[in-house]
């Protein structure tokens, strides 16, 4: 086969290349250029595919069929939760400088050394077998490749001749050089990650190469291989799940194990969270990593089938099919390639795992212990950091030694697969504490401890005990019959749970005990106030955009002491830098001036935690805290914080109560408004800006016969004919454009025909003054409208009738004018003839004749007077009216003079108000005053001293009336309405001569001026005539 020395030389060459790569990247990182690449990150996660995947999967496939896939499918599913679960882990690392999974648990549960220690212890114990498995894979395949497989009982070989021993040395060197060369505050190892990524590529290529070799060189393709595999007796079992194949229970258990281990194996946590260079890398990894797993497992089944076909049952361990096949077919090239691939897989895992475990041992097991014992202290000589570094290197060696020891003692009794799964179940024990801790606020320290302890006890009892018994370290009876022969305590069938395979059984009981205790104790025993506050802060800090507030009330230390601590564990340069940063953020020039404050303490502690873990950092920082006497102040501050929280929640409660009251008031007012709107006789509606109805009132509802629940979103075009709707929409738009209420008449069709509405429409505005809707209130004015119409008709009738009357009147006037005019000529003739008769023939007539003639003359004169009066009356109505300013006082004065001149014998006293003016036709007004003053003169004839007054009186309506008063015979008021009728006389013409037409003329003139006339008087008490003139 391949010579020992060729193999060793290839190994050394390969590992040498890795060293070189790692070294180069480390140097590069020291120069400040960090390796931040999503592909490198995703490939480094490929460490999940260990030697166990590389060799063990084929072994698992040969026995269990598809079972091996469940692990990788589970892992692929779990990384889909990157954003939620893993994102929180990454943030925990970034914000709290968490260095390992144990540290995460410790940080979360009040920086508890106990929880961190329990996780660390569990991780070491649980994962030693998994490390041993890697060593076993290296040594087994080495021997096989060298053709010395027969001598496989490694226990018999002396240590110095054991290949596994040399593998241990090589791996230890690698792990120490790149994981523990120096202390870095963030535990980032660029060289290591780069090497691991390259290793991932190498093993993927090797796995694909052996797959191609087997499928296409040993067989004629996939179809050929499976065709031949059909004749295998176990074929049916291997290609099924359920039925004769593996049970669904085991499938599910492996799926869950895959999901949990990809996050919770310390090595995986280290690569996923601690070595993460940016949360966004998680999002590329979540499809790259599953793709990697898919490719690397692609040929597992063909290799397993080929091995089963090639080798008789039991001749070759199925775990080694991958290397046994090329060896058996005499192809040393592919065999060596596979060996290097397996070596890659094992190396990567061992190195990362020992690094992660050493951090976890140092920071969470040993350092807290040493600090408590006082072997390392906050002060004192020496560089504390150097001791930590030695401690870490030592623990790497210790871990590898333990793994090697485990391998030599028990390693050969179980297949790789089974060992690996036991470790996976151990890692799964961290699930309740870590995942619960990331999301569940009520999980506390006591619960975490209880869960871890019970979970690991159950794990040891159901999974480790049987291994030890099988290896001969414990009596086999213990497993077969149960301790003390109690059957329901049998480790493989606890409480009688049989029919389940070993791993599923152990996973179920351990997780049940673990979760049960964690949840139960957490809920039964609430944490202290202080721990709860820290928990709240921790979880809040993990929210995507949350900010971590570091300080815890009451923890104060001087800046000098804190600087001292940092210098001691991180080096003076780093300490200066960090303190300067704090000082700058607090706005202080030098860190020496920093006041002691809780935030400073919290941040220093967090920095320290990045190197030595949370519990150790807590112990160290506690040692320099100002020893305030039993912290009245601290207690006060804590109480203060709590009372703040209480006050805050109280305020919230109050606010919510106020809001409720407000909401109730709002509801009430809304109901009130609705009631008003609904019961209003008017049509009320609301539309949005696009004209869609928002609400309508009951009146509108009844009127358009559409329910309000159906009206929402409808427009006028849905309800009315398009001509009507167009009108409404136009009106609405007008209102919205005007931005103010407008009033308009709209007609709406109703069941009894069109009805008219007077609508007021107005825009509704929100609090910012933006118009958001239109409201309309429309009142039915159909009846009013009809009444108006009727009145208008009536007026039209009246006007027509008035016109007829007017025409008739004019005709009559024309008639009376022409009659009087035509009568004058014959009357003049009659008068003239009578005059002649009287003058020339009087002596020829006897007395009787003369009397008759006299009668004729008088009658004809009277008739003449009447005709003249009639003529002047009709003249008054005819002809143009010329209005101008007229001095009435002067006019009355002239009339008085004329009258006195006519009858100088009479004693009449005139009282004329001076300066009475009027706006009217002077000719007509003269007629008026002639008549009125003339009447007054005439009817006061019987008084020894007559008295005639002219003047004005104010009227109630603000205008004025002219009056003419006398102290004559007066008249009876009951005949007042007959005063102004033509030819109506109260006295005989003999007593008071006159035509009986004067006042009718006066009234007509006054009316033509737009005024009115009325008289007041009493018999023998005189009379007063008032008149007004229109404007």
């Amino acid at each position, binding site marked *: 086969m391949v010579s020992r020395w060729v193999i060793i030389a290839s190994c050394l060459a390969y590992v040498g290349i890795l060293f070189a790569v790692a070294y180069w990247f480390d140097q590069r990182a020291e120069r400040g250029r960090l390796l931040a690449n999503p592909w490198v990150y995703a490939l480094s996660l490929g460490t999940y595919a260990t030697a166990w995947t590389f060799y063990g999967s084929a072994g698992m496939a040969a026995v269990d069929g*598809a079972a091996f896939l469940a692990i990788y499918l589970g892992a692929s*599913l*779990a990384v889909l939760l990157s*954003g*939620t679960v893993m994102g929180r882990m990454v943030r925990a690392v970034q914000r709290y400088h968490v260095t390992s999974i144990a540290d995460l648990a410790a940080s979360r549960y009040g920086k508890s050394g106990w929880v961190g220690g329990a996780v660390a212890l569990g991780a070491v114990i649980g994962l030693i077998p998994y490390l041993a498995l890697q060593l076993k894979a290296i040594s087994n395949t080495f021997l096989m490749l060298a053709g010395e497989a027969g001598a496989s009982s490694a226990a018999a070989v002396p240590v110095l001749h054991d290949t596994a021993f040399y593998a241990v040395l090589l791996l230890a060197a690698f792990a120490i050089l790149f994981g523990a060369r120096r202390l870095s505050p963030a535990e980032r190892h660029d060289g290591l990650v780069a090497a691991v990524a390259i290793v991932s590529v190498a093993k993927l290529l090797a796995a694909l190469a052996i797959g191609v070799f087997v499928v296409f060189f040993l067989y004629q393709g996939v179809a050929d291989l499976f065709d031949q595999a059909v004749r295998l007796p176990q074929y049916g079992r291997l290609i*099924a799940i359920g039925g004769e194949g593996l049970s669904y229970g085991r499938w599910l258990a492996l799926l869950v194990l895959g999901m949990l281990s990809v996050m919770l194996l310390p090595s995986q946590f280290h690569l996923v969270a601690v070595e993460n260079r940016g949360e966004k890398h998680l*999002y590329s990894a979540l*499809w790259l990593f599953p793709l990697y797993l898919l490719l690397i497992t692609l040929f597992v089944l063909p290799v397993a089938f080929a091995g089963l076909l090639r080798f008789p049952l039991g001749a070759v361990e199925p775990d080694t099919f991958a290397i046994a096949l090329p060896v058996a077919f005499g192809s040393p090239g592919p065999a060596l390639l596979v060996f290097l691939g397996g070596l890659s897989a094992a190396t990567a895992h061992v190195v990362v795992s020992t690094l992660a475990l050493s951090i976890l041992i140092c920071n969470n097991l040993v350092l807290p212990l040493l600090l408590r014992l006082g072997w390392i202290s906050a002060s004192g000589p020496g560089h504390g950091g150097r001791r930590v570094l030695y401690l870490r290197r030592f623990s790497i060696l210790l871990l590898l030694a333990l793994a090697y020891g485990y391998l030599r003692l028990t390693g050969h009794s179980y297949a790789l697969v089974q060992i690996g799964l036991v470790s996976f179940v151990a890692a799964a024990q961290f699930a309740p504490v870590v995942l619960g801790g990331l999301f569940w606020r009520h999980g506390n320290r006591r619960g975490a401890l209880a869960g871890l302890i019970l979970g690991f006890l159950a794990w040891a009892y159901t999974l480790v005990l049987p291994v030890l018994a099988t290896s001969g370290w414990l009596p086999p009876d213990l497993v077969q019959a149960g301790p003390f022969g109690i059957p329901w305590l049998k480790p493989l069938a606890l409480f009688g749970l049989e029919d389940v395979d070993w791993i599923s059984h152990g996973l179920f009981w351990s997780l049940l005990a673990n979760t049960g205790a964690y949840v139960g104790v957490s809920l039964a025993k609430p944490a202290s106030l202080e721990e709860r506050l820290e928990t709240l802060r921790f979880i809040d800090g993990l929210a*995507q955009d949350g900010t971590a507030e570091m300080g815890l009330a009451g923890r104060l230390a001087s800046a000098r002491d804190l600087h001292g601590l940092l210098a001691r564990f991180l080096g003076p340069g780093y300490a200066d830098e960090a303190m300067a940063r704090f000082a700058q953020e607090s706005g202080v020039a030098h860190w020496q001036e920093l006041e002691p404050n809780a935030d400073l303490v919290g941040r220093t502690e967090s920095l320290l935690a990045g190197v030595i873990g949370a519990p150790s950092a807590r112990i160290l920082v506690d040692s320099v805290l100002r020893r305030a006497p039993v912290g009245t102040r601290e207690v006060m501050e804590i109480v203060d914080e709590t009372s703040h929280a209480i006050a805050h929640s109280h305020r919230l409660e109050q606010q919510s109560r106020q809001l409720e009251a407000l909401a109730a008031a709002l509801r009430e007012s809304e109901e009130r408004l609705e009631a008003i709107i609904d019961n209003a006789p008017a049509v009320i509606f609301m539309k949005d800006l696009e004209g869609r109805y928002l609400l309508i009132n009951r009146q509108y509802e009844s009127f358009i016969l559409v329910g309000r629940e159906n009206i929402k979103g409808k427009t006028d075009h849905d309800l009315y004919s398009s001509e009507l709707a167009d009108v409404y929409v136009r009106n609405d738009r007008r209102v919205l454009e005007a931005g103010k209420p407008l009033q308009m008449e709209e007609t709406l069709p109703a069941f009894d025909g069109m009805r008219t509405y007077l609508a007021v429409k107005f825009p509704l505005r929100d609090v910012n003054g933006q118009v958001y809707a239109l409201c309309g209130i429309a009142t039915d004015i159909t009846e009013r409208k009809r009444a108006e119409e009727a009145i208008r008709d009536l007026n039209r009738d009246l006007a027509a009738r008035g016109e007829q009357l007017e025409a008739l009147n004019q005709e009559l006037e024309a008639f009376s004018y022409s009659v009087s005019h035509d009568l004058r000529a014959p009357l003049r003739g009659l008068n003239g003839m009578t005059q002649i008769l009287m003058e020339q023939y009087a002596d020829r007539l006897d007395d009787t004749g003369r009397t008759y003639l006299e009668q004729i003359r008088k009658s004809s004169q009277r008739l003449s007077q009447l005709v003249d009066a009639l003529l002047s009356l009709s003249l008054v109505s005819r002809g143009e009216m010329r209005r101008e300013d007229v001095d009435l006082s002067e006019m009355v004065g002239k009339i008085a003079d004329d009258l006195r001149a006519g009858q100088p014998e009479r004693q009449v006293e005139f009282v004329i108000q001076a300066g009475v003016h009027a706006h009217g036709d002077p000719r007509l007004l003269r007629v008026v005053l002639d008549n009125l003053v003339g009447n007054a003169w005439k009817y006061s004839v019987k008084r020894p001293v007559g008295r005639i007054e002219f003047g004005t009186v104010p009227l109630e309506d603000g205008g004025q009336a002219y009056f003419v008063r006398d102290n004559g015979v007066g008249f009876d008021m009951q005949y007042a309405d007959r005063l102004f009728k033509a030819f109506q006389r109260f006295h005989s013409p003999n007593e008071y001569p006159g035509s009986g037409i004067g006042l009718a003329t006066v009234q007509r003139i006054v009316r033509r001026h737009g005024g009115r006339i009325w008289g007041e008087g009493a018999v023998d008490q005189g009379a007063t005539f008032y008149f007004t003139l229109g404007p």
Partner: protein
Amino acid sequence: MPKRSLQDARLIALFLLGCLALTYPLLSLFSRSGTIFGIPLLYVYLYGAWATLIVLAGLATRR
């Protein structure tokens, strides 16, 4: 971070879909004899589902 939270919601949905596709009732539909291109049906289904999940995850995280 509304974009990020939408992405996370998609991924959680994808996770649940994957859990459903890879467990009992659905899985049993493909756990029967028969081959596609000479490969047993169960394996074709498992790898097919796996590849689909990867593609969907890739699409969900793009942009």
